[in-house]
């Protein structure tokens, strides 16, 4: 935006539907993603991956690969540089002969072109000593255990009152098991990194162009692993083509590429995972088996809620998805419990993915609520409203704001819920069975720590705002500029935002739908400090750093976003094919900073929920331990033709307590609830209750009226 004169009165940026500031550069191909960054005389890396799920590498024959013209080096555990820390076995790359999952990196070829690297990698011969492996999640698995906490730091189990007694006394009960499969993030931009070691003199011992969700947290983990101080590692990541949790933490390819770069000092080594590799080397969501029990009195007041979850983790690295945590907040009931149990398997490490916890957990709870409404003969919207709690049901804390009932009521109006035929009697339109479904959603507002920003006055009344934030394609470049403009009382056109670089003041990564809240709060604090010190007519070069203040609402209030989703589903009575012509989502997400980018994020979220309901499933072959359908042709996400009209809106209700902008998070709540709304609509259309996603035609075929 250099050279653009100020054109607007300051102070009114928040709430303005600005077009993406990075849009023109992206459309014109001038916004460099990691793999496209300038790299002088680069080398290319292609991994060699294990074809067994568990065992040891007995020997590796690299002779043929090394002899291919253009190959610079073949990396194996026998010649790889040593790492400094064994704390995280996912990152313990080429340090021993152990194979911990199918597709694990057991070597790599570095060559002058990507084609040569790939070809030579296929010539590396690896002999294994195969060991028994297990990749199948079962609820009664003998190795099932209780983790100390669930992601990120929630209690593993909670219990209040006596659920069994309340269920025995209830007028209506639901006791069902819901399942969600392994899912993968599948961002359009694959995991890519370019590493130079040593980096150029001014950039540090290691210089990286990388696609990630936060340069600061990535650096914090990678640097000590490489035996370096964080200051010695420079990471640049200004544009990211989707991540969804899979790029929040370092992955094995970062380490593999760094090790390779160490072997070829001063030459950049480029690595881009293939789509197929992304199904073993870029994280995934655990499958879940969830038993939900609900009890209610005759008037639909819940007396018991129990949500018991079994899910998997990698045997070599624990990750416990917080699947039942949202159930602790949703509805009032005197008797309640939630539990999480893990089964350690010989699978790659699961990780956060698209509303971790809430997405699978609320699928189960909100389908169960629909089943309870049927058991009670009650409207499912009304059932939810009747169970609205006065305060957070388990902590007893007051909500900062909670407008779920308004979302349900206003969403029902927007959707035309009143036209819904009676339960179990959906409409028929030719061969199509038509049904409506509803579900509620919630997402927590995560407090975070450790974030700073720098404000600098530039000539001509401009301000440079520096923070190591990230834009995953979500709109940070635009919305954070708007927050900064208001905080600095200058027009947005006078703000030069700089993000995505580890040389900038350190902050949190994008994740937990909290990026903009944390970065915005930090920028507001820095702007206040800057204006306190220099006023509104600062000399060019004036500079101030501000820190994220402690969030005083934490511990005093329950902090959550809420929403309600409605779906119309059409099922072909002949083939079982399912279409979703329209959905409505209405959200209590505080003040919206940029309605344009927010709308995109909420539509994107609901599309991911639709995807979870109808499409996404990573099929794991128990014999080999790999994902069978690991490419875009077979791992389905919705195409444009699958996404009908999605009407999203939000209540204009700022949250005065969570952050100074009045905003909540919007990145993930669109996902939560959508899958259940679709599944509930499928039931309404067909009378068939499918409790396992994805709901594919074969699951309905032969069961249709």
């Amino acid at each position, binding site marked *: 935006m250099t050279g653009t004169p100020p054109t607007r009165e300051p102070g009114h940026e928040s709430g303005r539907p600005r077009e993406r500031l990075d849009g023109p550069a992206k459309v014109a191909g001038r916004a460099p993603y990691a793999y496209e960054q300038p790299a002088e005389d680069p080398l290319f890396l292609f991994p060699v991956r294990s*074809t067994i799920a568990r065992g040891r590498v007995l020997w590796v024959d690299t002779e043929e690969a090394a002899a291919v013209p*253009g190959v610079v080096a073949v990396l194996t555990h026998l010649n790889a540089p040593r790492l400094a820390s064994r704390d995280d076995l996912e990152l313990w790359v080429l340090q021993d002969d152990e194979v911990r999952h199918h597709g694990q990196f057991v070597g790599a070829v570095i060559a002058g*072109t990507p*084609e*040569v690297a*790939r*070809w030579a990698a*296929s010539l590396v011969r690896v002999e294994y000593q195969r060991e028994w492996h297990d990749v199948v999640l079962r609820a009664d698995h003998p190795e099932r255990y209780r983790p100390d906490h669930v992601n990120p730091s929630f209690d593993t189990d909670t219990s209040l009152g006596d659920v069994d007694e309340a269920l025995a006394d209830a007028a209506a009960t639901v006791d069902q098991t819901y399942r969600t499969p392994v899912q993968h993030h599948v961002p359009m931009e694959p995991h890519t990194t370019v590493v130079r070691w040593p980096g150029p003199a001014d950039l540090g011992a290691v210089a990286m162009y990388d696609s990630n969700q936060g340069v600061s947290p990535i650096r914090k983990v990678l640097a000590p692993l490489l035996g370096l101080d964080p200051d010695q590692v420079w990471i640049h990541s200004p544009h990211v083509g989707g991540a969804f949790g899979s790029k929040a933490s370092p992955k094995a390819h970062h380490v593999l590429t760094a090790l390779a770069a160490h072997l070829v000092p001063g030459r950049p080594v480029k690595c881009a995972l293939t789509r*197929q590799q992304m199904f073993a080397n870029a994280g995934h969501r655990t499958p879940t088996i969830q038993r939900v029990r609900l009890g209610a009195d005759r008037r639909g007041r819940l007396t018991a809620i129990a949500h018991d979850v079994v899910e998997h983790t990698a045997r070599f690295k624990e990750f416990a998805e917080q699947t039942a945590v949202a159930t602790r907040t949703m509805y009032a009931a005197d008797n309640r419990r939630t539990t999480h149990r893990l089964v350690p398997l010989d699978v790659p490490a699961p990780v956060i993915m698209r509303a971790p916890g809430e997405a699978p957990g609320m699928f189960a709870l909100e389908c169960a609520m629909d089943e309870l409404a049927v058991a009670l003969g009650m409207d499912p919207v009304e059932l939810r409203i009747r169970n609205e709690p006065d305060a957070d049901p388990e902590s007893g804390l007051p909500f900062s704001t909670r407008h779920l009932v308004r979302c349900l009521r206003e969403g029902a109006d927007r959707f035309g819920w009143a036209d819904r035929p009676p339960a179990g009697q959906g409409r028929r339109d030719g*061969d199509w069975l038509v049904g409506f479904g509803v579900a509620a959603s919630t997402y927590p507002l995560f407090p975070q720590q450790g974030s700073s920003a720098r404000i600098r006055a530039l000539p001509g009344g401009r301000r440079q705002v520096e923070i190591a934030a990230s834009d995953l394609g979500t709109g940070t470049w635009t919305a954070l500029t708007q927050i900064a403009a208001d905080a600095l009382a200058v027009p947005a056109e006078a703000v030069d935002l700089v993000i995505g670089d580890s040389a900038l003041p350190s902050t949190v990564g994008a994740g937990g739908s909290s990026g903009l809240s944390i970065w915005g709060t930090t920028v507001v604090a820095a702007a206040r400090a800057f204006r306190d010190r220099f006023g509104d007519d600062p000399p060019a070069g004036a500079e101030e750093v501000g820190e994220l203040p402690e969030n005083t609402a934490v511990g005093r209030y329950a902090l959550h976003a809420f929403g309600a989703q409605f779906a119309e589903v059409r099922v072909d009575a*002949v*083939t*079982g*094919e399912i*279409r979703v012509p329209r959905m409505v989502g209405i959200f209590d997400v505080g003040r919206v900073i940029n309605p344009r980018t927010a709308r995109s994020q909420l539509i994107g979220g609901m599309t991911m929920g639709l995807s979870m309901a*109808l*499409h996404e499933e990573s*099929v794991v*072959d128990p*014999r*080999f331990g*790999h994902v*069978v*359908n*690991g*490419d875009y*042709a*077979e791992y*389905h996400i*919705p*195409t*444009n*033709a*699958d996404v009908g009209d999605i009407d999203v809106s939000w209540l204009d209700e700022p949250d005065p307590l969570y952050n100074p902008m009045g905003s909540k998070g919007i990145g993930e709540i669109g996902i939560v609830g959508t899958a259940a709304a679709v599944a509930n609509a499928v039931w309404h259309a067909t009378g068939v209750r499918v409790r396992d996603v994805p709901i*594919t*035609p*074969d699951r309905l*075929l*032969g069961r249709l009226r």
Partner: protein
Amino acid sequence: MIPFDYHRATDVEDAVRTAAARPDAAYLAGGTNLVDHLRLGITSPGLLVDVSRLPFDDIDRLADGGVRVGAGVRNSDLAAHPAIRRDYPMLAAALLAGASWQLRNLATTGGNLLQRTRCAYFQNPATPCNKREPGSGCSALAGWQRHHAILGASEHCVAVHPSDMAVPLAALDATVRITGPGGNRGVPLTAFHRLPGDEPQRDTVLDHGELITAVDLPRMPPTTRSAYRKVRDRASYAFALVSVAATLTVTDGVVRDARIALGGVAHKPWRATRAEETLRGAAARAESFRAAAEAELAEAEPLPGSAFKTTMVREALVSVLTGLAEGRPR
């Protein structure tokens, strides 16, 4: 770089002579399937003979009223051609139901017929597959079977042919025109693709060096109604779970002629001759159509994971035929 030789054919004779002389040669046209396979390590021909510039991109009217489609005609051009849209609408529909715009803009008529199965074990060189590596075993027999055959499979291979286009071509009695080292020949499309038997590595009856030059479509009687119905997991860019191509000629409420081919159910586009025989002379109503479908599927031998296809293709076929009989294509 994967080492292979490349030759851009100057004419048909040059192409055939060059390919026939090298047992490790493969023809390259649109490349939408072959290039993927090169990258994935599924195949590694030593010589690619590029036939994409040969003059095979015409669609001509034949003397008998049929149409000759050049082997190099792109799927999107074929689907958009006025003669195809008017006289063979189910072929246009099948083409448009396949792949994506980008792929259809590249993929050719000949290449479409020669595309290989999407069996996930065939696609992954790390898993055994008799089609990719004869004798290594069939991983699908005890594996993921959602996209596998219910008809005509063998103990060596349960893969299905993925083409949409080939299904109406089978129903239309199309002929594949071939030029090879021994001269020219024509093969009915229904005899072009093979069942797997004990040689699942052979998808078609083509001998090495033979090149598809055209596909001939016989004249369609103007009174015949036709439809293509594809059932899939998502609305676009998905291979068929099952598909049905059918033509129906009805006079006075009686079926005079029916031509039916099924996709997604076998190693080849499956011409449903039993169903056709059952229908000929039968009353054009749902009971007849159901009986025809049952007759065709009597010998279906699905795997546990593909059992749903028997129901799915039966219901789709009944629905398509009913729609054609009632004059409202479904």
